[in-house]
């Protein structure tokens, strides 16, 4: 898998750039938009890989499980490839995606697949050879451990059961990988996902398993030998089955899974035969249980995936709808704001107009009641009054300036006294005190 990546660095770099671009656009768009559009920001990414539903689903699964399982992922990779792990660890998420897409492309090329299978086999064999004992011990330990844990946890936690089943599955899958690497290739994604989901628990178990492994090293060694033999046998069988399986695998995954189940039965039978030290019946029962649990788990995971997918799609649709609705609402709000603003402007204009027309009525009213003494041309007075809502002068007649004689100035005052009650301010507009305050220049 990683060799593939190494073989196609250009594709990896392209993919990285592509993702960076998308992330960049994500941030660009995120910057412009409001809170609810954070959800929207994820959409372009999913759309990029929306060619097939599976990658999309994987993406979802990855995204959802990635954060809590990063460390576990690393460990898992360690198990597989400790050498390349460090290099790949930084790029892992993006690379994996690319690898997956590449794999999909590779699947169409059988030869390449074969080569890949071979390399995989070689790798596995090498790994088995180099770290066979440890790996097998761990795996066996896990199985034992799981069996024990299953006993303890079955009744307590459904999740743990599922996890145990997954652990068994891991062991089985490794056996299966030897038998059916193609299936493995097809299922790696699922396995990875399943592993990740189980990783939290697996982590703990592994820690325990390390302790147990020391005690049971002898047994593990035997198991490892048996497994090695088993693998060899499985390889032969696999080669025979391969042609048929390839055809089947090209069909829907569910069929593949069914086949897998059938294969698993065979594997189990083989495993039972091989492992005679442990109680066959119990083991078979346990395995059956484990199978059932596994099936359930698989179904559950499939269902979960489907549910997640559906949910994601639903969310996406909802997000789309919400986005549209938000956009429409925002537009509507802006429009209504503009309308409100326009209405307020017209209201203010109306108010202002009302004030002016009222003012001119007041002006005429006072003007008609002003009897300035004769010969006061050019004399001026400035008077400020506030008119109450009932038309009376609220705080006295404030003569701010007057250039004429006492007679003239008192005529100005008398004009306002004579003018009460003045035209009332239009009550409709609820004029403020300053709205009702008028300065008169009288000349």
């Amino acid at each position, binding site marked *: 898998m990683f060799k593939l990546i190494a073989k196609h660095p250009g594709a990896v770099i392209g993919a990285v750039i592509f993702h960076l671009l998308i992330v960049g656009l994500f941030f660009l768009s995120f910057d412009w938009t409001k809170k609810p559009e954070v959800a929207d920001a994820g959409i372009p990414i999913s759309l990029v890989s929306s060619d097939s539903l599976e990658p999309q689903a994987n993406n979802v699964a990855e995204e959802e499980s990635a954060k809590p399982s990063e460390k576990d992922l690393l460990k898992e990779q360690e198990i597989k490839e400790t050498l390349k792990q460090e290099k790949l660890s930084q790029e892992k998420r993006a690379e994996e995606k690319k690898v997956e897409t590449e794999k999909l492309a590779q699947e169409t090329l059988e030869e390449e697949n074969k080569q890949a299978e071979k390399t995989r086999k070689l790798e596995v064999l090498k790994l088995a050879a180099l770290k066979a004992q440890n790996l097998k011990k761990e795996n066996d330990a896990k199985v034992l451990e799981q069996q024990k844990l299953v006993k303890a946890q079955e009744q307590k936690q459904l999740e743990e059961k599922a996890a145990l089943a997954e652990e068994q599955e891991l062991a089985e899958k490794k056996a299966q990988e030897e038998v059916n690497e193609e299936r493995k290739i097809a299922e790696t994604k699922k396995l990875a996902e399943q592993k990740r989901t189980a990783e939290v628990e697996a982590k703990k178990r592994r820690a325990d398993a390390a302790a147990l492994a020391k005690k049971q090293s002898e047994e593990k060694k035997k198991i490892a030998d048996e497994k090695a033999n088993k693998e060899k046998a499985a390889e032969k069988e696999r080669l025979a089955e391969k042609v048929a399986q390839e055809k089947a695998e090209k069909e829907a995954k569910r069929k593949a899974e069914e086949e897998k189940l059938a294969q698993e039965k065979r594997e189990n039978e083989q495993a039972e035969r091989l492992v005679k030290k442990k109680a066959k019946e119990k083991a078979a029962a346990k395995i059956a249980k484990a199978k059932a649990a596994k099936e359930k788990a698989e179904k559950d995971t499939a269902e979960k995936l489907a549910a997640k997918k559906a949910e994601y799609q639903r969310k996406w649709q909802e997000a789309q709808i919400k986005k549209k609705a938000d956009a429409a609402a925002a537009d509507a709000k802006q429009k209504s*704001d503009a309308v409100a603003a326009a209405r307020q402007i017209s209201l203010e204009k109306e108010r202002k107009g009302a*004030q002016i027309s009222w*003012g001119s009525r007041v*002006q005429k009213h006072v003007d*008609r009641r002003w009897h300035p003494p*004769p010969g*006061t041309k050019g004399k001026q007075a400035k008077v400020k009054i506030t008119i109450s809502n009932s038309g009376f002068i609220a705080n006295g007649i404030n003569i701010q300036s007057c250039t004429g004689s006492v007679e003239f100035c008192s005529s100005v005052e008398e004009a306002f006294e004579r003018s009460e*009650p003045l035209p009332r301010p239009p009550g409709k507009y609820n004029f403020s005190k*300053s709205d009702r305050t008028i300065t008169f220049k009288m*000349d």
Partner: protein
Amino acid sequence: MINKFIPKTIHRVIVKALSIFLLFAVSLPSMAELELRISKTSDDGIPIYLANIAGGANGIIEADLKRSGRFTVIDRSKINNLPAYGAPLNAGAYSNIADYIVRGKTLNGGLEVELTSTSDNAKTIYNISSNSNNRRVAHQAADKIYEKVTRERGAFDTRLAYVTVTNKTSNNRMFRLYVSDSDGHRPKAILSSRLPVMSPAWSPDAQKLAYVSFEENTSAIYVQNIFTGKKRKISARDGINGAPAWSPDGNRLAMSLSISGSPDIYVANVNNGELTRVTTSSAIDTEPSWSGTNSIVFTSNRGGSPQLYRTSASGGSAQRLTFDGKYNSAADIANNKLAYVTGNRGAFHIALRSVNNSGSDRLSNGQLDESPTLSPNGAMVAYTTLKNGDNTLAVVSDNAKARQFLTSPVGDVREPAWSPYLNQ
């Protein structure tokens, strides 16, 4: 999608910014305080609507109110189907037409008049009792309305005295002294003479007229009761006996006598004939007019041309009041206003000023306007002006906004004198 997205975002941002700006711009604290100008030169009055009153009193009231220059009488066609007097009136409905609505009816030979404010629907009802002169009833109603609205006393129920001359350039000329209502109606001659009759002056009680008559081929001052016709010669000294003017207390008559050689102002006690000399110049001093109980404004050419001066009624130095123009004379004073004749570029006009302040307003535009006389409230000035070759009576409001020509008997009309308020 991205391409769409960004412009849309920008659009939204722009729209939002704009709307925020607009909201901010229009939601400023409140409107500015108003600043308005009130100019004396505007020429409309308080709008008032007069409903028809049986007997036509409303017509008399209308003319009175118009003449004051303080009202604009709204054309009757502006309101249709006004509820008849007695029926409920929603005056507020007419507030954009008139400030007041007047309705009324005749009642026992008098009038009942209702004044309603359209701003607050406030009603005032006046009952005017009957009078042998039924026009006076209407004038009295006009005074009530005037006073209620303007808060100064009305002077419509007053009288005018004036002189007419017929055949003025022939030997058949005839002088008549008339007394009429303040609107010129109901003129009644109280004296006729083939020789000049001049300068009628009302006693403060509005019962008597002092006047100058040349009926004995020399000037003499008489006082005649306008009701009884009984007359008394007050002064028939050598030379001029002219320009009588009653003191406010009615006990003294200021006049112009030339017993010292040139015409001077004297004050004669009406009761005992005691004479007090007020001015001592060798120039012409005439046309006295009382300004308060102890001050007299008069015309003198002591400065080279006729000008107005003021002095104490008990004598002493005189203070010149007019400086503009070469001819200022014939002062008449009421309510602290001083109407006079002013010669201006060869024409003579009526001018009005305050007694104490030198500024003046020109009230008339005729060529030879003369003999101004103020209504007792100082709101109107009657004077004579040439019209179709003869002098006729005119009344102008103190603000010069209204001017009416009064009807008068045949002849050249001259020297109107406006009576004080009538007690009866």
